[in-house]
Each structure stands twice: as C-alpha cells, then as structure tokens.
C-alpha cells in the first residue's frame, strides 16, 4: 500500500471532514489510528528529525492544553449535572462534554495536518497541485516563501542586535517597545524590497516570471487516480452526508 501525494491529500481531507462531523469518540480513535499509521506505514513516517520532533511536541502541547481547557469548561460553563465537587469548585457535565468534543476535534485536525506536512516535501505537494491547475506563479511564490522563512530569523536577529547597539529602546516600557518595532521592521523590509527587485529581474531573465508560463511541465508527478484516493474521497463524502442523513 503506497501513500503518495494524492492519497495523502485525500486522507487528510477525509480526516478533516470527520473531525468536523463525527462524534468525539470517533475523532479520538482516528487520532490513535494516525499515531499508529505514522509508526507502521513507511510513506507516512516523518521526513526527518525536525518534523518528527515538531509532530511530537505540537501534539503533546495540544493534548495537555485540551485536558486543561476541558477542565476549565467544566468549571466555568455551569449547565447540566454536577459531576464532582472539590474544595468548593464544581465541575459540570455539559462543560466537560463540550471540552471533550472540541478537544478531540482539534487533536484530529492537528494530527492529520501534521501527518501530511511531516511526511511530504512541500515541493511534492506544490508540484502535484500545479499539475492539477494551480498557477505556476503561486507555486513559485510558495517556494520563494520557504527561502525567505529560512533566512528570516538570522536577518531579524542581526537587525535587532544592531538597533539595540544603536540605542533603540528595545527594553524600555511597552509603548517605546512598540515604537521600536519600526526600527527593526524598516531595515528588514527595505533590504527585502531591494532583494525582491533583484530576484524579480533574475526570474524574468530566466523566463519564470512570465504569464505564459502557467504550468510547470518539467516536474514529474504522481497520477491522482488510485484505489486509496477514491476510497478516501468516498469516505469524506460519507462523513459529510451521514450526520445530515441521520438528522
């Protein structure tokens, strides 16, 4: 069983629709299935250590957050039966049920998206979407964004240190700190604008930034049609229609 880009996209869609329409127990079961699939299906494993760590840390944070928010909902939404009382604090049934429902939904959505982006190269997804009709300019924008995102932290750090050395009020009171935002952002935007102009020229010279280049034909992509893709798309429709049919 191979999970390539089309299958992964269809599976993610199916999980997202189920998280919105399914009961909390189904959502939590599917979270467990996602975690298991990540371990046993080679195509769904994290690409590298960074994405694996991100998957674990984000999910662990959301799991702890969901438990805390469920408890807070139980305490603050005072509707339905009192489940238990402790030190004068009452925990109500409807608040807990609401917290579990939203927590399970958020966990399934997050795990589905982390599974997709953790196991697939962004370039693979954009190449597939390009062949399916996404304009080449948008694909180029996404690739350039990844370049900028990678270089941005060091740029910000350099400008921040330089402005601090010049005496910008980066450690003063709140209003001064907000005002010093322009001292950090202005050089960042100015340098990036100059870089954008240079990159725009370079792209035009290479024929990339042209309206005639609508689809990039040079990239080999997977066929969108397979049993798994159709299965997941069918299940998405079922998940969407079932709650409506059952009333």
């Amino acid at each position: 069983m191979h999970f390539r880009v089309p299958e992964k996209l269809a599976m993610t869609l199916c999980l997202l629709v189920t998280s919105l329409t399914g009961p909390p127990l189904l959502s939590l079961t599917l979270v467990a299935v996602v975690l298991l699939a990540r371990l046993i299906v080679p195509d769904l494993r994290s690409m590298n250590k960074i994405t694996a760590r991100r998957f674990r840390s984000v999910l662990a944070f959301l799991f702890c957050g969901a438990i805390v928010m469920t408890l807070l909902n139980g305490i603050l939404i005072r509707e339905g039966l009192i489940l238990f009382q402790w030190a004068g604090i009452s925990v109500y049934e409807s608040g807990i049920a609401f917290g579990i429902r939203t927590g399970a939904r958020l966990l399934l959505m997050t795990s589905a998206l982390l599974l997709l982006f953790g196991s697939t190269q962004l370039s693979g997804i954009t190449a597939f979407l390009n062949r399916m009709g996404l304009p080449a300019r948008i694909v180029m924008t996404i690739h350039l964004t990844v370049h900028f995102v990678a270089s941005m932290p060091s740029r910000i750090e350099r400008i921040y240190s330089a402005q601090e050395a010049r005496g910008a009020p980066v450690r003063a009171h709140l209003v001064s700190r907000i005002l010093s935002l322009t001292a950090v952002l202005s050089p960042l935007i100015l340098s990036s604008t100059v870089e954008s102009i240079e990159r725009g020229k370079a792209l035009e010279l290479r024929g990339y930034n042209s309206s005639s280049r609508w689809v990039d034909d040079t990239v080999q992509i997977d066929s969108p049609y397979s049993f798994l893709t159709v299965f997941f798309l069918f299940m998405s429709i079922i998940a969407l229609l079932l709650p409506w049919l059952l009333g």
Partner: protein
Amino acid sequence: MSSRLRLQFDRELDGAGLPFVAFCIALNLTVGQITAALKIPLYLDSVGTVLAAVLCGPISAILAGAISNILAGAFGNPAMMFFVPVIVVIGAFSAFLAARGWFRSWYLAAAGGILQGVLAAAVSAPIAAFVFGGVMLAGTDILVLFFRSVGNTLLQSVFYQGLSSDPVDKTVTYLLVYFICRNLPLRLLQRFHGGNNILKPHTVH
C-alpha cells in the same frame, strides 16, 4: 480565472511583485519572533498581508494571506488553515482602503485599523465558534470562557473576545505599515503597482 482577474493577477505579480509577496508571507510567519524579542503582547500576524495590500494590490494581499495561513499549518499551527476566509477579508479590505488613500495619513490608517479589527472579529467569530467551539488552546480562550460564564452565547463570547484584542492589534499593524511605507525611498515605491497608494498623486510619474 476570468481574463480581467488574470490580467490584474499578472500586473500585481509582475517584476518585484512576486518575490515581494513571498517576503510578505514570510513576514507574516516570522513576525512572532520580533514581537517575542520585544516582549510585545500583540500578534501582528497580518502585517505582511497589509503591506502586500498597500504596495501590490488586492490579489497579492489575498494570496499572501491565504498562503500564510496554509503554510502556518505546515509549520506547526494547523488551526490557522481554517482562518483563511478571515485573512482574505483582511487583505481585500486593506487593499480597498489603500486604493482610497487611507494610507496617506496616519489618522486615516489608525481609523482603518480599528474598522479592520471589528471586521476581523466579526468574520473570525463564526469560524472560531462553530469549528473550534471557541477553544483555540491559546491564552485568549480564558476570555472566551469568562464571557460564556457571565451568560453570553458561544458566538457572542468569541466575538467579544475578538473585539477585545483585534482592533488594537490591527491598528498597530496599520500604523506600522503606514510608517514603514513612508520611510521607503521613492524610487523603490515606484517599482510597485500600488506605490501611489502611499504617495501623493503629483509625486507619481
């Protein structure tokens, strides 16, 4: 894509437009690093979108906002993907105001920021309420719970929470973009499709 829309798309993303929109998306995604370094309790996560709206135009702004939120999902904040409609509204509204000269004076930019904040709160409230039940696992969840505990409905609570933070956030964002664009050299501003959104009409050649 209709021919008129495609023409506008081509015009806005021509030359420096495309790399600049990519930079605006990266700015949306990394501005949190600056606010964290300066210990400022604001998101400012639409500063790139507003910048694209002012300097490039509506399609660039919508594109910058939508890709920012989708990539935020890829970079570890999947809930952002569901707020694409909000950022689309922010981009379109910012471009609308920019085209009418609201970024030529600071007080109009501030007023636009307040309006934008109210609009953003109104558009994001149904998504936050019906998709996430008001629970985003962020510090602002406490405010939603507080408003619910005093008897408001879920939708009202999420809207009030948005009203308590969005207008301030968007006003600071608009003013930042105004001051940054004012500081850009004229020769750079004129390279962009929306350069005359900042300049007085007689300065554009």
